[in-house]
């Protein structure tokens, strides 16, 4: 059991969150409103999971709903309960990936809503609300790398909709690193996987053209990828700036900026947004303003976000003077290698980013990335979010923790939580382990001085 007082009884909020990310919140809210009314505007809708295919959907004239993003949104708004209950009633086990079971719960509600069936467990109001909000799909596209569950999840969505909605699957080789030449962004395995996925994207485009009747707008793809590439470069610049001491912005700020880079349309507004984020960070660096009041410790965060706990966790770490300033989910995800994108012919670079999902690497590569980031950001410790229902993210964590300790002398702690199911979060464990790690860091510093 976990219990948390809603109002922190200790100190005041010591976070200093970026102001510029608020604009992203508004853009994302507009996007969802737009999606919820897409059907009325005559748009066809695609449900997809995994890598950011939105530029392709945009060029195919579709409205798009990213399943994980929708589940994360529900969790962040505290609205995941009814969807998860509907999922449970349909038979989905509570240990199943909570993104998938939240989203499948919505699928069940959407189907039932269309058929006028009342679920027993979910209140009629919640059911109507959720079913009406998320428009039923015209297509499914699965683009899941790095987790076998991702592919199986969409197949089950397809079955929940009684196989009446066409589905397209993109397969992604897991970047295991079989050969001696295999490495991050290098080696024969990387090359062949890149072209394999690129070829499947071409097949997807043909498939969409056949089914929508819309000719694919290649110019629009090139244009939106040009904006996305620019936005991604600005994002990278901002991330680089966070290596400064004290850190001008935190992991939590970047979490707030995930949705825009992950699924908003590529356009000038997106570029402007990341420019303003980068500028605000630069301004802070210039003025020596930190993202956490009195930064005392610098910490790397490994794990998917605990979406129900974003604000809470950011305050909690700040309370201890901890700047969480980098993490696999931020630093090594979401168009993180924009130099790979050729805006004249963007498909290969897009395919490569889908392969660069932060769970699609063998531990060898993850170890390289983690140690690199820990050194570059000069962190004192690692916090592993042992994300209960995400086996993909958590599998290599123990090995990464050992490696950080053995190679860099960096301590780490684990705390249990989940992406979209707050009931797995154990407050006491995080609190006591974090305090213990920070005490250890203090002792080490005292000895060194």
């Amino acid at each position, binding site marked *: 059991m976990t219990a948390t007082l809603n109002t922190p009884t200790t100190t005041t909020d010591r976070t200093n969150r970026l102001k510029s990310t608020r604009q992203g919140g508004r853009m994302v809210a507009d996007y969802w409103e737009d999606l919820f009314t897409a059907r009325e505007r005559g748009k066809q809708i695609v449900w997809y999971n995994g890598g950011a295919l939105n530029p392709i959907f945009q060029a195919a004239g579709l409205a798009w709903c990213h399943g994980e993003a929708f589940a994360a949104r529900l969790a962040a708004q505290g609205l995941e309960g009814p969807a998860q209950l509907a999922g449970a009633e*349909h*038979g*989905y*086990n509570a*240990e*199943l*990936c909570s993104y*998938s079971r939240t989203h499948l719960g919505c699928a069940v509600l959407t189907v039932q809503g269309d058929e006028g069936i009342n679920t027993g467990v979910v209140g009629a109001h919640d059911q109507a609300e959720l079913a009406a909000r998320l428009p039923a799909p015209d297509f499914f596209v*699965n683009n899941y790398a*790095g*987790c*076998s*569950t991702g*592919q*199986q*999840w969409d*197949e*089950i969505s*397809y*079955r929940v909709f009684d*196989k009446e909605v066409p*589905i397209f*699957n993109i*397969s992604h*080789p*897991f970047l*295991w690193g*079989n050969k001696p030449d295999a490495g991050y962004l290098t080696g024969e395995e990387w090359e062949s996987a890149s072209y394999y996925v690129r070829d*499947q994207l071409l*097949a997807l485009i043909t498939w969409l053209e056949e089914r929508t009747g819309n000719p694919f707008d290649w110019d629009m793809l090139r244009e939106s990828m040009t904006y996305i590439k620019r936005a991604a470069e600005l994002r990278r610049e901002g991330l680089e700036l966070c290596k400064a001491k004290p850190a001008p912005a935190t992991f939590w700020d970047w979490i707030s900026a995930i949705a825009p880079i992950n699924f908003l349309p590529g356009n000038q507004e997106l570029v402007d947004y990341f420019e303003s984020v980068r500028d605000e960070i630069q301004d802070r660096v210039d003025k020596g303003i930190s993202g956490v009041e009195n930064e005392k410790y610098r910490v790397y965060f490994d794990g998917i976000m605990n979406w129900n706990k974003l604000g809470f966790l950011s305050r909690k770490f700040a309370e201890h003077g901890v700047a969480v300033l980098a993490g696999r989910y931020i630093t090594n995800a979401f168009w993180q290698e924009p130099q790979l994108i050729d805006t004249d012919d963007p498909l290969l670079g897009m395919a490569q980013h889908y392969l660069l999902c932060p*769970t699609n690497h*063998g*531990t*060898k590569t993850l170890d390289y990335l983690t140690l690199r980031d820990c050194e570059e950001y000069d962190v004192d410790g690692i916090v592993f979010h*042992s994300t*209960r*229902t995400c*086996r*993909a993210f*958590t*599998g*290599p*964590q*123990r*090995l990464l923790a050992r490696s950080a300790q053995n190679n860099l002398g960096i301590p780490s702690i684990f705390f249990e939580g989940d992406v979209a199911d707050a009931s797995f979060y154990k407050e006491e464990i995080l609190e006591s382990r974090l305090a213990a790690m920070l005490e250890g860091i203090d002792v080490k510093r005292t000895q060194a001085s």
Partner: protein
Amino acid sequence: MSRGAAALEALRAVARDPRSHIEAWRSAHPEGKVLGVLPMNFPRELAHAAGVMAVIVPDDQQPVTEGRAFLPEFYCGYTRNLADQAATGRFDQYDGLFVADHCIQLLGSADVVRALEPDRRVFLGQLISSLSDSWAGQKTAQMMSLLRTEVESFAGTTIDDDALRASIASFNRDRDLMRQIFDARAGGDVSYSPVDLQDIVASAQIMDPDEHHALLSDVVAERQFLPRDERIRVHLSGHLCHAPRRELLEVIEEVGAVIVDDDLWTGRRYLQAGMDESLAPMDALAKWYAGRNTALPCPTRVQHDVDWDAWLLDAVKRSDAEAVVHLMPKFCEPHMLFYPELRRALDEAGVPQLLIETEHEGIPLESFRTRLEALIERTHRNRPAYA
């Protein structure tokens, strides 16, 4: 002890103590290599043809101790057991590990082996799992070819096509014989207990197919038809990748059920599909892989027009099963995802069912017994005698 009983005892010994069997093989083949392969789709024929002993790494049923430091507790029991085997040196009996399946939990455990056993080759030859795609056949063929090359490199030899043909024939013959027993059970002959059958299949996943076939032939030669009694006829479903605990199978029959068929990994799922010996051997491997999912659909594969639920309903009809018990290893995501589809299909067909989640350690038999008895009590109501 009769010849057949002794043969069954020998198979049982291998199933329950694979380590000793592997050690014995090593003594007899001092130059030979032992390759561990992870379930459920690696074609062991390739390794066999290269003179390598290929063992589908079993859950050795030891409690997870040092392995806890390497994989989180919410990984399935099988993968945590693998990590534990690696962490405690029990994995040393294998010279390498090959993986053809993409399950993220299997990959997690394979990565632990790779980290802890740096001198051993840990190879992922990922077979395409999305089987409806027009390119699936070509991709499967390419991967089979790569697997062949890698096995050759591991074995330090080349695989001769004729040797591969012979290996295919050996595995086919062994699977065919096992399938006959399973088909006989579905047809009403319960000469072998569910634990016997599990031992027969589990030993096949470890042994040389010819050796296994010879022993099994002795067993079968003495088979005497044993009709089902009046107990409730149950189909067992699920339990991918590793065997359920024997005690659980025993309890199911103790409470008043007779198991008439299954789709377990240490049951029909392993042996349902054979290879087409009329094809060129590499084509036969590729066809076999594609055909496995139609012969017995698997929730780890994605194939839009192949339905585990429909297969299960057919199987229930074929064996005249009255109820289905789903055995779900805790944290097995493909099973968790597909289970509602099975439940829905069985509900609509009016087949009583029960879900039992199994864990690697500790088996709450009393609680299982209560649930199973409740299922049996309920299923009895469907019998005319009860009216």
